[in-house]
């Protein structure tokens, strides 16, 4: 994220340990806050771990690759939910990254300042809409549109791919991905826009002075500089997509299955928690649901970790561009 860039930039002028008591007090206080966040995350993980005991003992690791979810028979497996969470999140990013990044580039580099400010405001407004509203819009507007127009059009043109086959229900992975994409675009756009605006003027002027066109300037001088910040915005969007509950539940069809077609109904981990937690009466069922929460936690940490590793790889060749 941005922090990593700026810290590297500041390099040696970072203040060393101060003798001043108020400085040390401040340092201690902020350290305490930072540790509290870490402690909170560990506490959540620990609570999820101990309260999923029955389910972990009964199913062991096979919980992760079992496809049955049968509360009546007491058979629980998380695989369809893991699959659904990953598919919808990836789909959302595939749609939202070009859209969000394109918008950010336009707002930061091309749009007249006044228009840019207005549009940025509107984009940020999208992030303030409660997710249940997205869900309702999904049910009443997007789902019928997807069923009547989008899915027949996709299967008509791209039907040779297994991704776009099957009966058009309207609800399913595709609609969930679409709704999620709209929900995460503001994260990508507003963070990326700020990052792009933070690219120093000299960087652009140098490129232009060398005779670069506007596009070349963006590609060679601006984007590499902003790369890790942009990647950070995408990470933030991904985290949001993985954890989104209400809007997804309302449009995904809630069927625990693994299907190649995006038209098919599916299920996600947050959705099954939201759906079944309140009426889960017996203990094993409850523990299985909490284990889903634990798996979601671990998957989120893993994906964020992998993305961060990729980010570090990305940042290396960009080195020379930065001062």
């Amino acid at each position, binding site marked *: 994220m941005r922090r990593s860039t700026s810290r590297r930039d500041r390099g040696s002028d970072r203040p060393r340990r101060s003798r001043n008591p108020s400085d040390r007090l401040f340092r201690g206080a902020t350290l305490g806050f930072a540790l509290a966040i870490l402690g909170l995350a560990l506490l959540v993980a620990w609570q999820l771990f101990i309260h999923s005991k029955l389910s972990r003992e009964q199913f062991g690791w096979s919980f992760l690759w079992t496809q049955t979810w049968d*509360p009546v028979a007491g058979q629980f497996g998380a695989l369809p939910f893991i699959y659904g969470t990953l598919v919808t999140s990836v789909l959302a990013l595939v749609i939202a990254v070009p859209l969000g990044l394109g918008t950010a580039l336009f707002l930061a580099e091309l749009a007249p300042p006044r228009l840019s400010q207005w549009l940025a405001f509107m984009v940020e407004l999208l992030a303030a809409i409660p997710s249940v509203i997205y869900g309702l819009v999904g049910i*009443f507007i997007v*789902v019928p549109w997807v069923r009547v127009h989008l899915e027949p059009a996709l299967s008509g043109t791209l039907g040779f791919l297994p991704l776009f086959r099957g*009966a058009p229900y309207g609800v399913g992975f595709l609609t969930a991905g679409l709704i999620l994409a709209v929900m995460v675009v503001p994260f990508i756009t507003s963070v990326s826009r700020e990052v792009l605006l933070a690219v120093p003027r000299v960087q652009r002027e140098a490129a232009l002075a060398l005779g670069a066109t506007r596009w070349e300037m963006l590609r060679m001088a601006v984007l590499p500089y902003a790369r890790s910040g942009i990647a950070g915005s995408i990470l933030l969007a991904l985290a949001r997509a993985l954890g989104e509950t209400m809007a997804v539940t309302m449009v995904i069809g809630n069927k625990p299955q693994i299907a190649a077609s995006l038209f098919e109904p599916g299920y996600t981990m947050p959705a099954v928690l939201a*759906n079944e*937690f*309140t*009426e889960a*009466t017996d203990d094993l069922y409850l523990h299985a649901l909490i284990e889903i929460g634990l798996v979601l936690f671990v998957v989120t940490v893993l994906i964020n970790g992998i993305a961060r590793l990729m980010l570090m790889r990305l940042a290396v060749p960009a080195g020379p561009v930065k001062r």
Partner: protein
Amino acid sequence: MILKSLRMLLVPAALFTVALPASARPALVNGAGATFPYPIYSKWFAEYAKTDDKVNFNYQSIGSGGGIRQVTAGTVDFGATDGPMSDDQLKQAPGELIHFPTVLGGVVAVYNVPGVTGTLNLSQKALAGIFIGRVTKWNDAAIASANSGVSLPPNDIIVVHRSDGSGTTFIWTDFLSKASPEWSKQVGKGTSVNWPVGLGGKGNEGVTGLVKQTPHSIGYVELGYAQHNKIPFAKIENAAGEYVDCSQESVTKAAAAAVATMPADFRVSITNPAGSGVYPIASFTWLLVYRQQKEAVKGAALVRFLRWMLRDGQRFAGPLGYAPLPPEVISLEETAIEKINVPS
């Protein structure tokens, strides 16, 4: 700025506390549980507060599972559930819990079949077949045989069910388990089940939305919800072989028909009872009250409320889409209320 707004919040709060001295404050009786009866319960508590200023009821509709857990843990004064507690669950409670049926709810099969304007008749076999995935076309003989004269389309049936755990699903699957041995063996009954086919909609509104929008679909919702949204629902074949429309009367009749076999603790399923004119997919919903009350004021208030609910409260059921209890059940419950011990 923050300080100022904080002060603005605190001042009225302080005034409020001063205005209500502790002695005059009504006792607060807390309850939690089922969401299905929430509209009638909140109506009851509001109406009851008008007649009794010594008590205030607070009800959290957190779901039957939560209601059972909280009443067992003693964090609330009473619980509420859509499915009766199991023997194991009753054993876990620190004292004897009594089930009190409060109202009845019917669950209807709503459908969206273009070209069909009248009311469809669905046999038990057809309904179970549709939901298990064996009857897949609307013009299947299992449906057509009970609907002579109706032109049914040859399209695929799209099944819609509740995705969230709910008492409505419990009633529905309880009925299907009785109607079809195959369903009972393969799927069973519960607040959430492993559905063989279909899409899941979240809540009554999710199911209603999907059924309304998706041609050739069928789903199930509570009677009141279907009436309010004006979606057609089918007549269902009962145990006597009649096709019965769901109404308050036919649901109340189902409860009356079950009185003969009613156990003393009221834990009874009234789906598919024998008898004429009964609608077969209905259930009680229950309040869970400890036989031995701990506090005199709260215990006495609960007893007063239960009596009021049985006598005066029942008339509020109809307008909210529930069916009132039959008189036979009310008199059984009035006897059961006598069993509650309130410390003096």
